[in-house]
């Protein structure tokens, strides 16, 4: 936001929730994908779910740092 005078204070960003969604999809997609790839490579079974959970967890952490500190 700029220092220029705003006639009215802007409301909290209404699109934040939708942006968070793309983070969640991205995190799960990425680490789930890595898990899937490793499963294929190593012939294991458990890395896809591990990757999905890890990706979701990391994304939540990222969102905490990104949006959580905003007062």
């Amino acid at each position, binding site marked *: 936001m700029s220092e*220029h005078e705003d006639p009215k204070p802007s409301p909290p*960003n209404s699109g934040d929730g*939708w942006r968070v969604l793309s983070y969640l*999809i*991205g*995190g799960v997609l990425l680490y789930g994908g890595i898990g899937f790839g490793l499963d294929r490579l190593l012939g294991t079974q458990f890395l896809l779910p591990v990757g999905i959970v890890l990706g979701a967890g*990391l*994304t939540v952490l*990222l969102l905490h*740092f990104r949006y959580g500190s905003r007062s």
Partner: protein
Amino acid sequence: MIAGVPTEFHPPGPESFELPPIISGVEWFTKPVLVSMLSVVVIVWFFWGASRKAAIVPSKLQFAGELGYNFVRNSIARDAIGSAEHMKYVPYLCGLFFFILLNNVAASVPLVQFPTFSHIGWAYAAAIMSWVIYNVVGIRKHGAWGYFKHQTMPAGVPVWLMPLMIPIEFISNILVRPVSLSLRLFANMFAGHILLLVFVLGGEYLIFEAGSIPLAGVGVVTILMGFAIAGLELFVQCIQAYIFVVLTAQYIGSAIAEDH
């Protein structure tokens, strides 16, 4: 379904969206193309009419036009991009908003009744356009490498977490955004239209072809539910146009924002 009913009910499916060309032989000229062209004509007529005889004391049309324009400029563009730079993007956002809005609402206009964006190519095209714009303005502002860093380095994350976070940030900002933008719009329009088809065609079948009085009664209720769904759809159509444009504005805003 009860046994012995001569005709069987065929539920609507994705094939309900495959419409033949309006003029046989002209393959590209289908209903969505016609609807989108009509929407452009209506939008141009509306804003041209609203601004042609601009006066201090506005006519009703001018008032309506200014209301719509102000809504996009103040509530979408300025809030998301900031008052210093938002005016550059207002024409695109305004055009995009009214184009999507009219093409969505077309699903509820009698005789038209088809949402253009229920064909996914239209949604892809709109999303790609927004994607190109926010990336280009970001690269212009920060330079290619600076923009890349800007979009992949999450602010406020401890350094030791960076290697895990940068790929998430990249995937989400560069790859998932356009996909989610287009799929959200497409899926809402597709699902809403198919829901209406199910209720109306199902009700029609129950009343006229199922061949039993209680089922006909159920059919009447089904049709009434269809009207309720149509009302809900009108709401969804407006919300989806709004969401698409708000997100486009926010993506532009975050692409040109200074590092925080």
